[in-house]
C-alpha cells in the first residue's frame, strides 16, 4: 500500500512540467469565469455609487466617466425629498417585531412537534410542509380582505403579524430539525429536577438550539426587509411606508434629477451592505445550514 502511494507520487512529480501549461490555462479560465461574475455583480453598484455624486448633466452626457466634482448636495436633496429616514424606521420596526414574534411562536410549535406524539401531530407536520411550497402571493386578495377585516391594514404591527405568519412553516421545520438534534435526555434531566415544560424550553432548548434560532431569524429578517407585494397593497398612508415602498416612489419624486435618484438609491442600499459585511460569516454559515436542514 505504502509503495503504491509512493509510486503515484513519483508519477505526479514526473508529470508536473508537462502539465504546467494546461494548469496555466485552467487557472486563466477559472479566474476569467470568477471575474466575469464579479463584474456582473459589482459594476452596476459601483456605477450607482459614482453616479450619485455627479450632476444630472454629467450623467446624461458622460455616463461612464468618473465624477469631475463631488456633488454631495444630491444626498442632501435626496434626504430632504424622500422621507427615507421615516421609511427606514418603519422597516426596522416591522422587521424587529416580526423576527422576535416569529422566533417565539415557531420555537414553541417546533418543540411540541419534535418532542410529543399526539393526535394530529403528523397532520400538522404535513400542513407546515405544504405551507413551504405554497406561493403565498397567489392569495393576495384573500389575505388583503382578512387583514382589512381584522383591522390590521395600514398598520406596521399588522404587517409584522402577517410576515410572522408567512414565515411560520419554514421556521418551524428548520427549528424542529435542530431540536431533534438535541438529545431527549437533556430535557428529561431538567424535568426530573422539577422544571416545568415552559422552563425547559426557556432554560434548555433556547440555549441549545441557538444556531437554529439565529438561522431562522436571519431568514425572517431578509424576508421582512425585502417584502414588497403585501406592503404595497396593505399600506396606503405615506408615513407608514416601508423602505421598499418608499424606493418605488423615488422614481416619481426625482423626475429628471438623476443625481439625486442615484444618491437616494445609495442611501437605500448602503446600510444593509455594511451590516452584511460585518456579519457575513454568520449570515453565510446559517444560510447554508438552513438549506441543508430543511
Amino acid at each position, binding site marked *: 500500500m505504502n509503495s503504491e502511494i509512493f509510486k*503515484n507520487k513519483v508519477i505526479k512529480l514526473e508529470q508536473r512540467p508537462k502539465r504546467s501549461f494546461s494548469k496555466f490555462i485552467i487557472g486563466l479560465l477559472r479566474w476569467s*469565469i470568477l471575474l466575469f461574475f464579479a463584474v456582473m455583480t459589482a459594476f452596476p453598484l459601483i456605477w450607482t455609487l459614482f453616479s450619485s455624486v455627479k450632476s444630472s448633466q454629467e450623467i446624461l452626457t458622460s455616463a461612464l466617466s468618473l465624477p469631475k466634482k463631488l456633488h454631495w448636495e444630491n444626498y442632501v436633496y435626496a434626504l430632504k425629498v424622500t422621507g427615507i429616514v421615516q421609511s427606514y424606521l418603519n422597516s426596522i420596526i416591522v422587521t424587529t417585531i416580526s423576527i422576535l414574534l416569529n422566533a417565539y411562536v415557531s420555537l414553541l410549535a417546533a418543540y411540541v412537534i419534535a418532542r410529543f406524539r399526539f393526535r394530529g401531530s403528523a397532520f400538522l407536520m404535513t400542513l407546515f410542509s405544504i405551507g413551504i411550497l405554497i406561493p403565498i402571493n397567489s392569495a393576495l386578495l384573500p389575505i388583503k380582505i382578512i387583514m382589512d377585516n381584522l383591522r390590521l391594514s395600514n398598520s406596521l404591527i399588522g404587517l409584522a403579524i402577517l410576515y410572522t*405568519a408567512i414565515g411560520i412553516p419554514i421556521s418551524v421545520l428548520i427549528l424542529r430539525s435542530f431540536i431533534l438534534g438535541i438529545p431527549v435526555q437533556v430535557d428529561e434531566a431538567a424535568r426530573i429536577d422539577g422544571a416545568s415544560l415552559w422552563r425547559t424550553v426557556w432554560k434548555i432548548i433556547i440555549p441549545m438550539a441557538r444556531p437554529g434560532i439565529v438561522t431562522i431569524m436571519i431568514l425572517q429578517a431578509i424576508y421582512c426587509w425585502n417584502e414588497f407585494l403585501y406592503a404595497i397593497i396593505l399600506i396606503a398612508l405615506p408615513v407608514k411606508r416601508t423602505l421598499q415602498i418608499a424606493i418605488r416612489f423615488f422614481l416619481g419624486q426625482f423626475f429628471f434629477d438623476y443625481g439625486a435618484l442615484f444618491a437616494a438609491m445609495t442611501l437605500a442600499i448602503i446600510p444593509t451592505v455594511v451590516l452584511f459585511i460585518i456579519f457575513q460569516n454568520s449570515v453565510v454559515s446559517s444560510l447554508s445550514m438552513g438549506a441543508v436542514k430543511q
Partner: protein
Amino acid sequence: MKTNQEQRRFIVLALIPAVVLFGTFYILPMLGLIATTFFEWNTIKMGGFIGFDNYLKMFQDNVFYIALQNNLSWSLVAMFIHIPLALMVALLLSKKFRGWKVLRTIYFLPHVISVTAFAVIWMNVFNPSFGLINSVLKMIGLGAMCRNWLYDQATAWPAILLTWVFHVGLYAVIILGEILSIPEELFESAEIDGASGIKQSFHITIPLLRNITGTCVILTVTGGLRYFEGLYIMTNGAPNYRTETLALYLYQKIQLIQYSYANTLGVALLAFGLLFVITGMKLFKLGKSDW
C-alpha cells in the same frame, strides 16, 4: 397523573399561536382563494355562482398564456442555467484559493440589496439615454446596437432575465457550504487513485450535491414565481404584455377590481408552483440521504 395533564396543557398552549396564525394566513386564504373563483365578483360585493366561467375565460385569455410562458421560461432558465452556474462558481470557490472570501462577498451583495432597490438600479443600467449598457456599447464602437432594452418587444423579457441570471451568490453559498462539509477522506482516496481536480468534481463532488442542488432548484423556482416587485417597478408588463407574469397579472387584475378572475389566476399560480416543486422533488429524489 399530574404530569400528563400538565403536558397536555403545554402542548395546546404552545401550539395555539402557530396554529392560529397558520390557519388565518394560510388555510383560510387558500380556501377563500379557491372558493371565490366560482363566483362573479367584479365590484366590492360578491355576485352569484358562475361555475367554471372564470377558468374558461382564463384559458381564452392571451395575456394569461404570455404570463404562463414567461413563468415557464423563467423557471427553466433558473433550473438549467442559473443553478448550474451557481454550482460551477461554488466548485471553483471550494478550492479556497487566495481571495475566495472577497469574491464570495461580492457575489452575495445582490442578495442583501433589496430587489426593489436593484430594480431601480437596473432601470438606470438599461436606460436608453444614459444607461450603463448603451454607454458601454457606444464606447466600444457598437453604438448601432443601442436600444431601449426594457421597452423593445424583442429584448424586454431577456433583459428581465438578465437582471438575475448571473447573480448566483445565494445558491453558490448554499452549495459551497455543502461542498465544504464533504468528508476530506473522500478526496484523499481519489487523489491516491490519481483522479485530477476536474475528475474529482465530476465523480465525487457533483453526485454528492444532488440533494442540495435539488433544494436550490426548488428555492429558485418558487422564488421566481413569487417575484413581483422588480417587474412591477421596471416594466409593469410593458411593452405589449411582453413582461407579464402570473404574479404581476394577478396584482393588476386586483387593481382593476376583477376580484374573482384575480383569484383564478392565483389558483393557476398555485397549481403551477406545486407542479414544478413536485416534479423537482421527484427528479432530484429529494429527502434521500447519500451517505
